[in-house]
């Protein structure tokens, strides 16, 4: 039963070794200081053990030199920890440009993933090995947290906004997904598996399985059924602004100021349109808060994004094909025309 006593989780992502390196450094520092203190305590306790009843200790009042010594050395060591930890944090939270994007929605008590080409899964996540994957995560109810120990990555999934997380799986295999933010009864059952597979296997996997079309396709349908298209005409004659080509560009607002149209802004514009009103328009767009589910919202966003994409890039292409330095518009967005191309 108790056959394995693992001390470390597997290193199954490219980040894992970097996190472990910091960990080892801290373990070493801690072991050193803990041992130092323990040894001093033991030696002093033995050596200066009281030998008779009336004995008193020496009157030693202190030493500035020593105080400085044991202030400055720990300070120096912790500053190494700080800088190293901060660098690692930036690295772990900032996805490289052109990472493959997957949307993840948490709800009590399951994880729903939507791949850009429309594949969906629940409590499972299939990713290719060797390619940066960026998860864009939202929640339908309370705060959850997406954690893959073997990848050393984790991020809270917060209702009302998006959080991101990224990794590059380095080893094919199946790895735990845990929800680490307490979210109610079945918090401990809100678990799943990441399956990391070789690029070719991944393509095969994408090809199989039922799906209705890409996310953007689904979004396009919603755009019709929710009557968005009645106001947002492509001609510019509608009551709402033109959305084609708008993604990633700055938007001028009523009352001054601009925002860049990113996922968060799109989300806000759909749910609470009056929060930021586009210059030159009346605040007549109805709020869709409560009318669309978190998943539908993601599809709408994917659709609007696809309208703004410069040119279609088929999914499943290595990220390196994307020219670096493009605006924050994700390049790997498929268009409705090419569902799951490249299988």
């Amino acid at each position, binding site marked *: 039963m108790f056959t394995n006593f693992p001390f470390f989780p597997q290193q199954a992502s490219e980040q894992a070794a970097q996190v472990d390196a910091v960990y080892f450094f801290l373990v070493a520092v801690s072991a050193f200081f803990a041992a130092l203190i323990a040894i001093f305590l033991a030696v002093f306790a033995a050596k*200066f053990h009281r030998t008779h009843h*009336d*004995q008193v*200790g*020496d*009157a030693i009042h202190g030493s500035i030199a020593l105080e400085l010594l044991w202030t400055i050395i720990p300070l120096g060591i912790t500053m190494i920890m700080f800088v190293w930890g901060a660098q690692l944090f930036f690295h772990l939270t900032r996805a490289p440009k052109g990472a493959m994007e997957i949307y993840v929605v948490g709800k009590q008590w399951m994880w729903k993933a939507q791949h850009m080409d429309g594949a969906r899964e629940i409590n499972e996540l299939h990713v290719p090995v060797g390619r940066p994957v960026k998860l864009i995560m939202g929640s339908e109810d309370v705060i959850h947290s997406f954690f893959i120990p073997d990848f050393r990555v984790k991020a809270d999934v917060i209702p009302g906004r998006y959080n991101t997380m990224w990794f590059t799986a380095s080893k094919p295999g199946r790895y735990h997904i845990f929800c680490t933010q307490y979210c109610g009864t079945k918090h401990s059952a809100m678990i799943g598996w990441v399956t990391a597979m070789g690029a070719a296997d991944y393509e095969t996997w994408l090809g199989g399985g039922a799906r209705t079309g890409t996310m953007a396709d689904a979004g396009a349908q919603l755009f019709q059924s929710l009557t968005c298209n009645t106001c947002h005409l492509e001609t510019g004659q509608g009551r709402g602004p033109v959305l084609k080509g708008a993604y990633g560009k700055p938007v001028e607002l009523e009352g001054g100021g601009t925002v860049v149209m990113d996922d968060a802004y799109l989300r806000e514009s759909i749910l*609470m349109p009056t*929060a930021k009103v586009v210059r030159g328009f009346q605040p007549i767009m109805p709020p869709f808060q409560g009318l669309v589910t978190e998943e539908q919202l993601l599809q709408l966003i994917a659709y609007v994004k696809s309208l703004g994409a410069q040119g279609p890039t088929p999914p499943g292409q290595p990220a390196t094909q994307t020219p670096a330095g493009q605006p924050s518009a994700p390049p790997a967005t498929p268009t409705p025309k090419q569902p799951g191309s490249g299988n």
Partner: protein
Amino acid sequence: MATEGNIHARPIAIQPAPAGPYVHEAHHPWLQHHFDSMTQQAEASTLGMWVFLVTEIMFFGGLFMAYLVYRHASPSGFQEASHHLNIYWGTANTAILIISSLTMALAVRSAQTSQPRGTQVLFLFLTIVLGLAFLGIKAIEYTDKFKDRIVPGPNFHWEGTHAKAAEQFYSLYFAMTGLHALHMIIGVGIMSVILVMAWWRIFDEEYYTPVEVAGLYWHFVDIVWIFLFPLLYLIGRHYHAG
């Protein structure tokens, strides 16, 4: 090695105190047994009240924090919502509180200078009346909000464009002014007790700590309002004055 010493030879840490200023100052009837002197007692009480007011600052501070965050998130929504507050009532209440602070300060002064009880009681009475006036106006304002259905909750009703932000503004409005009003009510209660004590001729230049400490509290509640008034009533009034 450790020094050999005699543990039974105790250093002088305790000596009987010489009869002096610390111990037996003329024994005032209101001096509590564990204090040495009236001065010590008074200083302890005022310091205690100040420390308590610091906790009050932090207590209201949590609400101001929320206000700051949400105003930062929806500035125009807050502006719009603010316009539905009645600036006349707000200004009147500010003036009323300031007057009450004056009467309070004078009440302390009259105790401090051993004025006849009539003077002391009068100032305290005025303070209470002004406090009640403030609460009355607040009640009128609240009723108006209920009538206009701008009380947050399922029945919240908003004409403008920023319904969500307005609801949030009014959540904060009721939380902040409600907590402030609660403090006013407590203040009126305290002042009533102080008034009775003044009536019993307890206060004079020798002993007026309770009036002074209660005054500190009263002024503090006034200060909170000094900030609440502009933050709630006066946002962006220039847009459409009224």
